[in-house]
């Protein structure tokens, strides 16, 4: 084992990365999102997508949905590190529950005329995207679905005059009667 002169053991980890969706139920108090994000940046974890909003205003509860990648050991660490934060009630790994639904919403602005305009409308119809704004030279589509469906739709719009996209990030919930 050769490594450069160092006071630390420099290890290469070869475990493959996995993508997990975590639902985090937190007390909605000042700074709580900064704590969660600071944990990820401070410990070098990835955030692929982050969605947060108050879900029960009576109890001051917010739900944060985080999509993250890492080796299985890192994913386990992330969950433990989140769980030990004082304002965190629960952390559920939606990917491990095996039966969660993930949805994302995107608004997609497309500009153009002629055949491109017709083609964009036809594809939007196939993807069940709704027109929520229209001018003689543009559309804004609203599309809901899992992230890969949205990415696919955006890719199709690109040659048809894609201007910009606004995505909400992933929201997730488990199937069946039980809550988290």
């Amino acid at each position, binding site marked *: 084992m050769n*490594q*450069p002169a160092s006071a630390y053991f420099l290890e290469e980890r070869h475990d493959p990365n996995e993508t997990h969706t975590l639902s985090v139920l937190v007390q909605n108090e000042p700074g709580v999102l900064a704590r969660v994000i600071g944990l990820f940046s401070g410990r070098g974890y990835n955030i692929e997508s982050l969605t947060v909003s108050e879900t029960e205003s009576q109890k001051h509860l917010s739900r944060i949905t985080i999509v993250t990648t890492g080796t299985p050991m890192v994913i386990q660490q992330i969950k433990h590190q989140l769980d030990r934060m*004082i304002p965190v009630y629960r952390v559920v790994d939606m990917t491990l529950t095996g039966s969660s639904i993930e949805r994302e919403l995107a608004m997609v602005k497309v500009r153009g005329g002629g055949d491109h305009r017709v083609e964009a409308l036809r594809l939007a119809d196939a993807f069940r995207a709704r027109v929520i704004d229209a001018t003689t030279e543009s559309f804004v589509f609203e599309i809901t679905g899992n992230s890969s469906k949205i990415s696919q739709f955006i890719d199709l719009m690109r040659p048809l005059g894609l201007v910009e996209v606004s995505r909400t990030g992933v929201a997730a919930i488990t199937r069946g009667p039980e809550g988290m």
Partner: protein
Amino acid sequence: MTDKSHDPNQMTGAAMIVRALIDHGVQHVFGYPGGAVLPIYDEIFQQSEVEHILVRHEQGAGHAAEGYARSTGKPGVVLVTSGPGATNMVTPLTDALMDSIPLVCITGQVPTHLIGNDAFQECDTVGITRPATKHNWLVRDVNDLARVLHEAFYVATTGRPGPVVVDVPKDVQFATGTYHPPRKSDVHISYTPRVKGDATQIRKAVALLANAKRPVIYSGGGVINSGPEASQLLRQLVEATGFPITSTLMGLGAYPASGPNWLGMLGMHGTYEANMTMHDCDVMLCVGARFDDRITGRTDAFSPGSKKIHIDIDPSSINKNIRVDVPIIGDCGNVLGDLLQVFKAEAKKPDIKAWWQQIAQWRARNSLSYRKNNDIILPQYAIQRLFELTRGKDTYITTEVGQHQMWAAQFYGFEEPHRWMTSGGLGTMGYGLPAAVGVQVAHPDSLVIDIAGDASVQMTIQEMSTAVQFELPIKIFILNNQYMGMVRQWQQLLHGNRLSHSYSEALPDFVKLADAYGCVGLQATKPSDLDGAIKEMIAIKRPVLFDCRVAALENCFPMIPSGKAHNEMLLPEEATDEATAKAFSGGKALV
């Protein structure tokens, strides 16, 4: 409606802070006044239940509170002002977070209407200290203050202990509101640390222990944090099982150094027998330690053949660095109690005679040996003499960080928990002197010694003034080799002996410095002077700076070179230049 002016629970925010300290049994606060905490200092002036220890720098207050906490098991309390007062606390807060020390730090803040305006002595204290604390709060309403203060004490002292910050704007200190004594509902219902270990897991652990052929117990600072009962239970477990035991730097004293099963400290500068036992064991019981990188060496070669049991109160410590087979989440003392009960009821002492014979062979290598010298004081010898001459006394030891710290850990034998205060996780030079101040405040009649280095001690030397003011007879025992010894050692071993900025050319005359501070300066330059000077130091009932001139180029062995496993230690007699160069793969040839 009652007349609020006669309600004893109506008071200013500043009064609430002092009242909450009293309600939590706080006797000493370490702090430094400033504009944003003046209302609190005014309250402190007008009462006598809480004594305030005035330090010379806020960092000193933080480390003093750490020493106080570590030596008593009670939370250390700090009071500092906004802006620089708060930023100077970042080092001790981080230090306390790494070593799980309960601290409650109250910071002043600019008035709420000025927050965010770049006001004088304003900083984003909760933002800056968020990653340096277990939790922190900015209190914007005086009616939240009592609840937050009570929660702060609860969070700091329960579960895995740690530092907390309560940031209180000056207008909140002046405002009048309603105080209430501590109550259960003050705490976030989302905070529920787990104390009791899972019974099934404990049974699994006992089954592994009972059938072990080559077991080892590896204990850490968590046992100390759990309280004196945990150390007693650990000793009983060692007795009941007959297993060998080693400990991390933070865990020294939980099992007595004179105990028959003691292997010495493990890790980078641990003993040969401790590290070899860890490497070759078949069952490892880790109690309140966290498989830190100074302990494991290269993780892919760490104790490859063992089943590992890990007791820790913090679930995030499990499987962080090393994958374990039987994790048990819970308080060390609580779990050890249950484990011991099940072991005694269901298992008998395994026969591990062959294992002890193997360990005896490793011990015979005498890995802490050093060549004797009659002309120059060797640092190892100095610590040994200090240990012998303070043995049996009511002694507390603190350290700074570096070679002297490792030699103290290797050569000073700790018999009891809470007697050893050192900066383990963060490795803060300048920790030991203010920590000694804090320990001495808590134990005014005990012998408190900071084993220091000439470089480290200068980082917080100003606290000698605190010691003199409060008549705290701390002893600062400086192993003076004129180098940042550990930096120099690494430069020798890893950077071709290019000693880049590790030599202190212009050290102060520590004896004169002691004089200037109004304490006592002593010096020893020859081995023959040492015992007499140490005895003199012990006899003096005032603060002492002891300038112990030691061999300049002595290095700290044994050592696990970086990138190596436990069974690839470099022993002192093998540490020739050639062998050292070879052991440090990638390292340059030594000059």
